[in-house]
């Protein structure tokens, strides 16, 4: 069986080329370290490898104590947001060949949330502000018929903000959030936007009141770091600007 496969693919006999990249990882073990420290790893990689593959290689073959979150590994679950070469990215969506491997690749935990270990931060403050904006449909009983109907145009109004995977790449790229952890942060506002502009939802007023708070949308300083960091390409700053406008007008 195995020979048959080999005969079918004679070209596969050639060795797939690899290259060596250096990863500088900001490590922190709360039981040993007072401060985080940088540690470098030389990893042999393929052209098709992503940062996540490199981290796996380190964890499985070099240092089993390296700690990071990942789940689906395909950019959907939002577990592996980290700062790669100084920018928030998903490790599973960042190809090594797109980075400059003549220099070390810096990998560290996202900023602004309490560091727990290596690349893992405490996400609770992030999810707390997400919960505060009531991220669920608020609607009374259906009026007439059994369905809440929506036209394609009405659906398209909030399509961009439905794409959020709650990876925290945006919120932890925000300079306002770094210095003021009370700020709701882009992710919470994006998820509020998703319901505020949903024609089926009736809780827009409540959410706009919450976001009109001192720590709400007015904290946004339009640095566009969030828009740049979003692995789903959501126009985050645009969404925040729309929520600001909705608050001024008093309706979505």
């Amino acid at each position, binding site marked *: 069986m195995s020979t048959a496969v080999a005969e079918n693919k004679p070209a596969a006999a050639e060795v797939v080329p690899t290259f060596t990249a250096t990863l500088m990882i*900001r490590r*922190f073990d*709360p*039981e040993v*370290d*007072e*401060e*985080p420290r940088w540690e470098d790893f030389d990893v042999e990689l393929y052209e098709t490898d992503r940062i996540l593959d490199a981290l796996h290689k380190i964890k499985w073959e070099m240092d089993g104590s390296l700690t990071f979150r990942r789940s689906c590994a395909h950019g959907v679950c939002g577990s592996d947001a980290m*700062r790669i*070469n*100084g*920018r928030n990215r998903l490790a599973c969506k960042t190809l090594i060949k797109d980075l400059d491997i003549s220099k070390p690749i*810096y990998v*560290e*935990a996202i*900023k602004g949330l*309490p*560091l*727990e270990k290596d690349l893992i931060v*405490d996400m609770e403050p992030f999810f707390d502000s997400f919960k505060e904006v009531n991220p669920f449909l608020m609607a009374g009983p259906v009026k007439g018929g059994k369905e809440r109907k929506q036209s394609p145009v009405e659906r398209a109004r909030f399509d961009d903000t439905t794409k959020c995977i709650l990876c925290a790449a945006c919120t932890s*790229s925000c*300079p306002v959030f770094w210095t003021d952890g009370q700020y709701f942060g882009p992710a919470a506002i994006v998820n509020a936007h998703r319901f505020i502009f949903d024609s089926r939802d009736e809780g827009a007023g409540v959410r706009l009141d919450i976001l009109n708070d001192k720590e709400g949308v007015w904290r946004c*300083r*339009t*640095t*566009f*770091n969030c*828009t*740049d960091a979003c692995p789903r390409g959501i*126009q985050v*700053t*645009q969404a925040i*600007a729309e929520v*600001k*406008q909705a608050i001024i007008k008093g309706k979505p």
Partner: protein
Amino acid sequence: MPEKSASNLVAEPQSPPKIRSPKRPAGTLYRGKEGMWSWVLHRITGVAIYFFLLVHILDTALVRVSPEAYNAVIDTYKTPLMGLGEIALVAAIAFHAFNGLRIILIDFWAFGAKHQRTMFWVVIGLWVVLLAAFIPRQLMHIFGG
């Protein structure tokens, strides 16, 4: 009381090492793009202008206290050092003003967020043009006598 100390004695050896987060998790500088750096510049120029205004209100108010002291202060403004300071002041105010208009457009113009990067370079362009017109003239004032 004895109960308390007894429970303390039992609890102490088995209490796990306390998990502490580091004092300040620094790391590399975040590599934001035009948006972030325009915000940094906007904040720096804003604070600088605020302090200038504070001093400026004080020295203008001096005229009511003592016109002689006021004249003495105003005379120091004619020194070359202050002249160069005025260049810095105009540079700061011009950037803050143009970038302020950009921020207003981002918030109030429907396509503002989409074109923010272009608008940033327009701001820089206008700023350079304004300074190119102002600096030679100001240098003539300072050093031309």
